[in-house]
């Protein structure tokens, strides 16, 4: 008997038309503007874009971790069919760290300096699985062993300042894995680390998500990382998704000038990173004062008249190997 796996039909996470705005002194800043994302169970999706494009805000809105000055203006975030934006605080807390967990960019400041590593890793286990502290700490030791931290038992009683940056990020991964979540969101998990450590951490993350069958939303501004670790890629620019495709299709046949520009700024295997300004000239736009048409138009080498007046919609792209390849560009119809 043949049954299609459920995940082929129903996505694990589906973000539809999400808009998030911040109240600031300079007025309303729309950090995410009608973003769409789909993530299937067990899949790794990379969310790529320059600094300030809205990647972190998108990630934080999934778990409802935006600050008080943020407001979700529109959209739905369906997780296993349930709209996270409509859950009450209590129900949302039941999902955080349990079904969805998150790893942050700054390992040096993301762990609490005055609580033991053991306590911090054991906390979600105790909370979501109702274990006693001793049981949860036992599990925490196993988790530390899984992320290849030596002497896990002894390390439980230590504090973050006893750990290096890479080790702390391993602790964060252990913490994220604690309750076998279906989705792990990793927001630039290696940006703050040494280059050699970066690869180790990404490798570990990839291995462990594969072993546990968790899906991974990997946020990065490094297209080099994407090629190795992600199956699908979504490119974000000024709060909008401008292109999404399988990693292979995106590399082979990019369908957006911004993606092409990003690609050209990836360091070549042999040497020097090529200067980013050479490939994409100009600055990312001011979110408080976006141009009326395509936000990329002022920097685009192929800009038309149409681009300056009308925002392009995210539409199926042509001339690509990926059926789900989409791009938002008037120049690539």
């Amino acid at each position, binding site marked *: 008997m043949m049954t299609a796996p459920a995940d082929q039909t129903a996505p694990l996470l589906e973000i539809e038309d999400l808009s998030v705005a911040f109240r600031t002194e300079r007025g309303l800043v729309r950090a995410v503007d009608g973003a769409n994302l789909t993530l299937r169970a067990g899949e790794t999706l990379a969310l790529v874009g320059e600094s300030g494009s809205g990647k972190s805000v998108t990630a934080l809105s999934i*778990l409802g971790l935006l600050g008080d000055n943020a407001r979700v203006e529109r959209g739905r975030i369906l997780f296993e069919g349930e709209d996270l934006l409509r859950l009450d605080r209590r129900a949302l807390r039941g999902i*955080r*760290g349990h079904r969805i967990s998150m790893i*942050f960019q700054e390992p040096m400041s*993301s762990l*609490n300096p*005055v609580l033991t590593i053991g306590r911090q890793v054991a906390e979600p286990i105790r*909370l979501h699985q109702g274990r006693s502290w001793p049981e949860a700490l036992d599990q925490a030791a196993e988790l530390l062993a899984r992320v290849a931290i030596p002497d896990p038992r002894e390390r439980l009683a230590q504090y973050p*300042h006893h750990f290096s940056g890479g080790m702390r990020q391993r602790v964060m991964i252990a*913490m994220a894995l604690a309750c076998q979540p279906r989705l792990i969101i990793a927001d630039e998990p290696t940006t703050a680390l040494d280059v050699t450590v970066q690869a180790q951490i990404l490798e570990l993350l990839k291995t462990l998500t594969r072993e546990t069958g968790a899906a991974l939303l990997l946020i990065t501004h490094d297209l080099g990382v994407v090629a190795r670790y992600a199956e699908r890629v979504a490119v974000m620019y000024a709060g909008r998704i401008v292109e999404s495709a399988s990693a292979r299709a995106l590399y082979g046949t990019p369908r957006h000038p911004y993606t092409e520009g990003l690609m050209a700024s990836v360091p070549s295997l042999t040497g020097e990173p090529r200067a980013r300004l050479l490939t994409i000239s100009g600055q990312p736009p001011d979110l408080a004062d976006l141009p009326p048409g395509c936000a990329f138009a002022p920097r685009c080498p192929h800009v038309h008249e149409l681009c300056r007046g009308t925002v392009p919609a995210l539409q199926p792209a042509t001339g690509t190997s990926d059926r789900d390849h989409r791009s938002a560009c008037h120049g690539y119809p």
Partner: protein
Amino acid sequence: MRAFLIRRLLALVPTLLFASLIVFGAMRLIPGDVIDLMMAQNDVSTTHDRAAIEAALGLDAPVHVQYVRWLGGALTGDLGRSLWQNTPVASQLAATLPITFELGLLALLVSISVALPIGIYSAIRQDTAGDYAARSFSLIMLAVPSFWIGTLVMVFPSVWWRWSPPLEYTPFFTDPLTNLRHMLVPAIILGLAISAVTMRMTRTMMLEVMRQDYIRTARAKGLSERVVVLVHALRNGLIPVVTLIGLQAPLLIGGAVILEQIFVVPGMGLLLLEAVFQRDYPVISGVFLVTGVGILLINLLVDLTYGWLDPRVRHR
């Protein structure tokens, strides 16, 4: 840990020596000396009598000799005798110190139990009506001197309701309830006065801590807001607050001296005040010595708490 304690206690010795030197010297700079006062009271005025009294009290020796004598006595626990009552200073201190200690401790408890909850509340409800109310309250407490409030509490209730705070001192171990009834009013006034700064500091620190990345991590785990605030944030926020509480120790003692006067609490403050008016040097020295030791011990306690709160400074 034990080595640390011993080292810290030994480090107190030079500090105390220095402080005693200053007190001993400064006292002699206050205009008017004890002999003049005694002679004025007893109606004797010949220079012959003056020399006799000086000799009898040991005040004829040069100041540095007096200091060395006093220090030698202090090291063996003998702080000399009161120039007026001729009772040993040590026993006067033994009678009054516990009372002032009780007042200070009660005030500290009042201060902490007011400042921490309100400071935390104020921070997590930043810019709400409650926050403004708490901040205004602390501003008022900062601006209004406690002796003034003490006087108001003495005067107005008796005018309005014919009620006045009890002023009869009963030792704690004779009758705890009556004792507390007497001590509580000055303790609350003193506690509220010093709670203002602690409250503001708690609020500022909690606001700072709640912005930290690890608080976001704690929320991302699904912890309730109560655990996030009371476990993950508070411990970090308290570290500077504890230091502040230690720095307030002298304020606490100074305030106790004034309120003891208003509420007729027979503590060290009352003793000191009388001694200063009468230029009773040994008593003044004794009170300052005990106060100095007290303040230094409080600071030691603060450092120990600090180490307990912050693992990064432990075992140093």
